[in-house]
């Protein structure tokens, strides 16, 4: 509660600044750049491009589900290839890459007050290996036999057998190779993000003054560094099973009357390894979204985030707990049933810190000064969809309730709502929020509102009713829903409705892409700090920030990131680098 004067509490610089690598020409400035901001744009553009492929794939599978038998080219093989590639692209190559590689690269150095990531060269390599992973993934569309159709979970034995598309062709080999490359590339980037947050903060930027965006990305990166190795070894082992005929995951198998040359492996071991990665992965996507949305709400409600310390501990707590819940994906896998007691308990416990975050978001709105800007609209939509999807998690996490619902459309609806729609709404909100910093211009408001309403309401209309198909018992991953005695005629009509909504929501994304490109040249000039925000990225001398981010001197941080509407202060925001005499800092001690 005391004023912090420049002399107080600001430690002296410990190490001298390191000279940045300066680009010498167009290639090193825009292509092989070591500037985290350029790398961020490269990551984002690549992720968006591959994400468009995933969007088209989702249309194709909805064509089949909504209008079965109408489209001859969607064979069961093709359908399984579509769902597999859609899932893998969305989870790994789009969301993980965009949140960590895109937002992480752009925001971490700017928000912590660093000139760049601590290892710029490794950071550049990280992107190029990611690009290679994407290209290997895309190449499987053109390989003999096409991409793998094993489902995004790639469960053996079927993933490497001839009954599955790509199982005995190139599809699965290219998929596993691409994952291995992705993890190598990610590890390079991830080490950078962690070390930059720990070691690259400017003077005065204590850990408990970091914006929650940084806390979310930082925690997610630590988790990813711990979780991805499990997927890495699983991928390597499955590749060995497929290529060299080892039996890590392959027991004795009689396939179509023929004995395979495998024996003694454990299919369920793969599932444990996969979900030891896969569950933290959910939070690797969710935590950056949690962090970002906290900052969007705070900034656009002109009010400090409610319960900052609780928010930080909730992020860290969720991150830690998410490593002991993985087998809730395996309640009906045939693992020992007593595991169910343990994993149901841990899974429902994780609901508590998650609920605290939701309370704190809505309590931030309470007595705020809510500006219904487009980022704020997306943040509100995130809360609705996240609460909805999080609550259905209480069905699936509660082991016995999961038994009838597992492997049905209820699961599809749940995870799309909670880790598809909700984080992507945050991505959109974040793009509308930070686009002015990246380009210097605002995105078009009218197109933005159109994009928001169609995306939010459309996505809700897609996934909310879908839960009830699952409750009815309609299984997921069915290329054909014909001859199903449990499905009424009206359930098929509901599927057609969902498909039509999917096309409409997809179309709205084209409007968004147009806005992204059009506004680079034609958007309204933004100025340096259009949202009147407190965090350091809005205080840069140039917009877009130059290489090195800040001017001659790095900013010095005097206060937390949430000094909005401080009583007695003239403006309704006080930037983090504003010395205390301009108004009291009330950050929680």
């Amino acid at each position, binding site marked *: 509660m005391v004023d912090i004067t420049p002399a107080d509490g600001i430690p002296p610089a410990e190490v001298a600044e390191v000279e940045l690598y300066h680009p010498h020409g167009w290639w090193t400035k825009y292509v092989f750049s070591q500037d985290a901001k350029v790398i961020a744009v490269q990551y984002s553009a690549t992720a968006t491009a591959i994400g468009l492929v995933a969007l088209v794939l989702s249309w194709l599978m909805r064509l089949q589900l909504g209008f079965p038998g109408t489209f001859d080219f969607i064979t069961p093989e093709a359908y399984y290839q579509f769902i597999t590639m859609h899932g893998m692209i969305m989870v790994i190559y789009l969301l993980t890459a965009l949140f960590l590689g895109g937002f992480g690269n752009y925001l971490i150095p700017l928000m912590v007050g660093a000139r760049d990531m601590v290892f710029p060269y490794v950071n550049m390599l990280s992107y190029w290996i990611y690009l290679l992973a994407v290209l290997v993934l895309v190449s499987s569309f053109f390989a003999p036999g096409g991409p793998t159709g094993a489902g995004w979970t790639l469960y053996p034995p079927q993933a490497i057998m001839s009954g599955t598309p790509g199982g005995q062709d190139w599809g699965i080999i290219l998929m596993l190779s691409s994952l291995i490359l992705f993890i190598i590339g990610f590890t390079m980037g991830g080490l950078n993000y962690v070390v930059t947050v720990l070691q690259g903060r400017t003077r005065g930027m204590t850990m408990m003054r970091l914006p929650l965006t940084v806390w979310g990305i930082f925690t997610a990166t630590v988790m990813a560094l711990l979780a991805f190795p499990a997927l890495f070894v699983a991928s390597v082992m499955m590749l060995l099973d497929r290529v060299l005929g080892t039996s890590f995951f392959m027991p*004795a*198998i009689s396939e179509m009357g023929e004995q395979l040359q495998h024996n003694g492996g454990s299919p369920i071991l793969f599932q444990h390894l996969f979900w030891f990665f896969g569950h933290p992965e959910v939070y690797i996507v969710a935590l950056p979204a949690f962090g970002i949305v906290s900052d969007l709400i705070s900034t656009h409600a002109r009010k400090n985030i409610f319960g900052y310390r609780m928010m930080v501990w909730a992020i860290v707590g969720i991150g830690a707990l998410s490593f002991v819940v993985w087998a809730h994906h395996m309640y009906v896998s045939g693992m020992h049933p007593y595991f169910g007691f343990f994993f149901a308990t841990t899974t429902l416990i994780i609901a508590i810190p998650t609920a*605290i975050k939701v309370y704190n978001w809505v309590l931030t709105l*309470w007595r705020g000064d809510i500006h219904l800007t487009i980022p704020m609209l997306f943040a509100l939509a995130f809360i609705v969809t996240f609460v909805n999807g999080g609550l259905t998690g209480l069905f699936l996490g509660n082991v016995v309730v999961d038994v009838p619902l597992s492997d*049905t459309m209820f699961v599809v609806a749940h995870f799309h709502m909670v880790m598809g729609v909700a984080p992507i709404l945050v991505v959109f909100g974040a793009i509308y929020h930070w686009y002015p910093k990246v380009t210097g211009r605002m995105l078009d408001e009218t197109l933005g509102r159109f994009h928001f309403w169609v995306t939010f309401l459309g996505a809700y209309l897609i996934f909310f009713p879908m839960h009830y198909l699952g409750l009815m018992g309609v299984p997921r991953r069915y290329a054909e829903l014909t001859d199903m005695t449990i499905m009424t005629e009206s359930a098929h009509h509901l599927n057609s409705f969902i498909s039509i909504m999917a096309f409409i929501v997809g179309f709205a994304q084209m409007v968004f892409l147009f806005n992204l490109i059009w506004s680079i040249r034609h958007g309204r000039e933004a100025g340096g700090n259009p949202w009147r925000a407190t965090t350091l990225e809005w205080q840069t001398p140039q917009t877009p920030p130059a290489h090195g981010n800040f001017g001659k001197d790095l900013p010095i941080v005097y206060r937390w990131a949430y000094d909005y509407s401080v009583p007695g202060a003239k403006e309704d925001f006080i930037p983090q680098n504003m010395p205390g005499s301009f108004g009291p800092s009330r950050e929680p001690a």
Partner: protein
Amino acid sequence: MAVALVLVLIVVGSVLFHLLSPWWWTPIASNWAYIDNTIIITFWITGVVFAAVVLFMAYCVFRFRHREGNRAAYEPENKRLESWLTIVTAVGVTALLVPGLFVWSRFVNVPSDATEVEVVGQQWQWSFRLPGRDGKLGTSDTRDVTADNPLGVIPKDPNGQDDVVVEAADLHLPVGKPVKMLLRSIDVLHDFYVPEFRAKMDMIPGSVTYFWFTPTRTGTFQVLCAELCGQGHPMMHGVVMVDTQQDYMAWLGQQQTFAQLSAPKQTGSADETTGQTAALGPEIAARLETVGSR
């Protein structure tokens, strides 16, 4: 204003959809009404939380929307409020977890009088095996699978000789008798799922998994495979018929044993084989009856 209204409409619309839409679970045909009840409890608790959070948001958006001259309050923390919310949430979570774990313990503890029935999945069909007059299923091994021994029953195991083998055909179960479904696969993962029974479990090559249930009404039910098993996955349907005791016995009387199926084909005509089965069937059925009532 419009935003607050839309948020209210989302809550109202979702609740009305839940109450009025025609899409709901199938009429139950097993003892697992406990699971349905747990789902109902979960719908209530989560529904109340969803409505409360979104309506609160709608109120905030309406009441605290930006107007000229407004200024937000400054309140970084409120320890009391945060503690209370944490406690209330923990109570709610416990109210979900306790009944859930209670029902789970019933689900995983098989009653001692349950009859064993083996389900074998393969790409892309269902087969079944019932214990013969000895009341025991013979051991099995995927490496013993041949055209004449599609389920891989170990030929040397005497317990397996009298097992009733139902290859790629319908399974019949007697109503009102608990059954333990022993689940096995000879190729990839499958999952034996009958929506009306509410239960399901994966089948893993190299392992035997299980679940149990008691069919509570007669009828014909569709079996669905619920674990992706290759391109034939959506066509992997089967049929379970829950019969009265008499109908079940009649069906059982027509089935063949493992020994009969693996006997050299040239020893008799098809008619003779059928005759033998018909003679054997009632004995097996009687034996199953005594096993069932143990």
